[in-house]
């Protein structure tokens, strides 16, 4: 895993080949992350995968986080792994709350197929170029994207006579 200076070196190398693609870096709790311009995510992922000496050829996870009060609101996280050096690198692309869209990386990493569908299923992120972007876990006729933070949790309120009387509403 690149350490802090290593992360800055990596950013410098990417900047030399794709200027402006990396917006920022973050190094927290020994996890290195590149914050990337969402429109150039494919360029960065391709560079990290194919450039000699980098070799982040394995996408171990693709997931989305909802930073609700913040704008841009959605973060698409790509967890890359270099299996020769056992180095992990997180690439993060931030997307706006209004119609979040990003290019699909299924061409680069076939394993992203189901994970992008899951991200679409639960967060409503649209991945352009995905072969079949449909709901994967929820029913096909489900309305809404339930893992968004402003989605109601659901369920039913359960109150019991004793505890309600004892502890109030």
């Amino acid at each position: 895993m690149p350490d802090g200076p290593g992360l800055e070196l990596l950013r410098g190398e990417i900047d030399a080949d794709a200027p402006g693609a990396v917006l920022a870096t973050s190094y927290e709790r020994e996890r290195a992350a590149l914050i990337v311009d969402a429109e150039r995510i494919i360029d960065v992922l391709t560079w990290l995968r194919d450039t000699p000496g980098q070799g982040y050829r394995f996408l171990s996870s693709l997931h989305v986080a909802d930073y609700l009060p913040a704008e841009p609101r959605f973060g698409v996280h790509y967890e890359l792994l270099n299996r020769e050096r056992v180095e992990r690198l997180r690439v993060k692309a931030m997307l706006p709350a209004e119609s979040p869209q990003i290019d699909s990386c299924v061409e680069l990493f076939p394993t992203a197929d189901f994970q992008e569908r899951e991200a679409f299923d639960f967060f409503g992120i649209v991945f352009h170029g995905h072969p079949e972007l449909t709901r994967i876990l929820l029913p096909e006729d489900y309305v809404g994207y339930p893992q968004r933070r402003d989605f109601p949790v659901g369920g039913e309120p359960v109150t019991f006579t004793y505890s309600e009387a004892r502890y109030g509403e």
Partner: protein
Amino acid sequence: MEVERRSFQGRQAAARDMLRGDLEGADLEKYVEERVVTTTFEKMLNLARANSIFPLTFGLACCAIEAPISIVTARYDLARFGAEALRASPRQADLIILSGRVSIKMAPVVRRLYDQMLEPKWAISMGACSSSGGMFANYAVVQGADKFMPIDLHIPGCPPRPEAVMYGFNKLQRKIIGNPDQGWRQRYDAVGTEEWARGGPASQPSPEAAEAYELARELTLA
């Protein structure tokens, strides 16, 4: 009729004599009276049904480890109650045990399985999740399986022990026979003290319960 208590050997000897044709007259009458039970056809049918239930081989979640899997093993042995034949097809099954949370995607499937079962059929809702949603009070899980299918028996627990499932199974048998156990509310004269969830469908408390609730509330808040 007074039934004479006899040892096992005594009964065996009587049966042997009867088969040999040695019993005659009053002895034969007594022998037959002791061994024949008169009842209605429906009761006999229900007795047969209750003691030859075929459960469906079906599991939903972690409760499935306790219910259809553990209780048929040698340690618990549901075969003692005539239910060892788990059927792989709902068309051959009498009983479906909902063992676990029912997600909204699974609910139509469960309902279809239940509809495919032949009458008479019974359903047990096992554990907190399938009875009320349990800890899964969220968008993905049906809050209680009796919202989409009739349930004969609820077994509480998270998960219930296999002993609890067998106890529930025995309760179901008595229900099938037509002689359901009285609950503790009847035994302790506590009808009307049910607790209820507010706001949900069919959650209207009984007048007694509402009164008791108001009283408890006043007493505790005072």
